[in-house]
């Protein structure tokens, strides 16, 4: 646990493992109750987060904000709902992980975190208070701004901004290594989300995974450089008629059974961006699935 400002805490997951590590969470303590940001990957991990919060305050848990609907960030949500929290999230819960339906997503996730960690699981990511634009939560004298920035990492992306403390919980818009996944979202929207982070000018930006950067703006810049570079590369390949396989040949192969390792993220992002650029070059306006 790390104190970011008086009453504002980050609960850090793993460092140095990129998106594969346990995600970060956070909480904000006010005289009128607690706001939790993200719920951990399982009910067991959610319980651990709740105990951490309880080591700081006995005040009631009022709200749980979910930065997006990937299982590693919301599968512990039921713990907070049972503790009395209402859920703030984007109503668009679609992700690739949920394409097979809720039961399949759950079964797949049991393989990741184990059955023990999943005891007591139920879906709890449907919002009581949906946010599709921006929303300001005022609680116990605190101002907490919720900003929808998807579909950047996912269609349901939210960021949590504390304007007085200048602390940002960026969700997976930011990852410690600067390689944000766009396969569930889109590269142009990610660039817009990064511009939003820049315009907020956070003193502290908590990424969805990994260490809090010493310089938030530098991580934003690194992420932007990666995405703009990838887009330019794929655009040039499409325009020159280079087939996807050859356009990707400079990238290391994805890691087997590790869908969000660094190599897998870079490869999967490149595929997605190539396809998007192909559509743009051909002049196709929409995406039939969104």
């Amino acid at each position, binding site marked *: 646990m790390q104190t970011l400002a008086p009453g504002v805490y980050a609960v850090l997951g793993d460092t140095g493992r990129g998106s594969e590590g346990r995600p970060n969470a956070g909480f904000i303590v006010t005289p009128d109750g607690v706001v939790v940001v993200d719920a951990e990957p399982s009910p067991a991990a959610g319980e651990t987060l709740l105990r951490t919060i309880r080591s700081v305050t006995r005040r009631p848990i009022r709200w749980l904000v979910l930065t997006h609907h990937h299982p590693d960030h919301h599968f512990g949500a039921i713990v907070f709902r049972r503790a009395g929290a209402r859920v703030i999230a984007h109503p668009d819960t679609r992700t690739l992980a949920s394409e097979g*339906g*809720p039961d399949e997503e759950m079964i797949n996730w049991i393989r990741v975190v184990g059955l023990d960690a999943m005891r007591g699981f139920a879906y709890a990511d449907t919002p009581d208070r949906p946010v599709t634009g921006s929303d300001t939560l005022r609680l116990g004298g605190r101002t907490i701004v919720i900003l929808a920035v998807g579909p950047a990492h996912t269609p349901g992306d939210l960021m949590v901004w504390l304007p007085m403390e200048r602390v940002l919980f960026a969700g997976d818009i930011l990852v410690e290594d600067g390689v944000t996944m766009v396969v569930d979202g889109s590269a142009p929207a990610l660039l817009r989300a990064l511009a939003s982070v820049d315009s907020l000018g956070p003193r502290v930006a908590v990424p969805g995974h990994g260490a809090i950067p010493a310089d938030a703006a530098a991580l934003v810049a690194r992420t932007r450089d990666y995405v703009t570079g990838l887009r330019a590369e794929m655009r040039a390949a499409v325009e020159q008629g280079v*087939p996807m396989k050859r356009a990707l040949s400079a990238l290391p192969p994805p890691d087997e059974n590790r869908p969000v390792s660094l190599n897998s993220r870079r490869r999967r992002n490149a595929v997605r961006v190539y*396809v998007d650029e192909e559509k743009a070059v*051909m002049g196709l306006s*929409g995406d*039939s699935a969104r």
Partner: protein
Amino acid sequence: MAHGTGEARIRVPDRIAQGDVITVNAIVSHPMDTGFFRTKDGDPIPAYFINEVIVTYGGDEIARFEWTSGISRDPVVSFTLRADREAPLTMSWKDNKGGVYTQSVNIAFTAA
């Protein structure tokens, strides 16, 4: 529900001389649902995909593709063509629910 289904584009080089072997790229907007996925409520999404693509050049059928649901949404197809005459190139995409989507480009020669 999908929007823009059936919107199609065919891309050929800007400059074509008679006898060139050109690459034709074509895309159609289609969900290409496999039938294996479900909605967030757990309801199955029925299979809905393009299963046939027909290419004609000046009225002659020059290619026919049989597709399955194992192709990504908004599928792209590329093939080469010997541009031996000035004529329209027409493509038709047919799906398993009876949808037919057609797009044409004119193959015309530019002075070398």
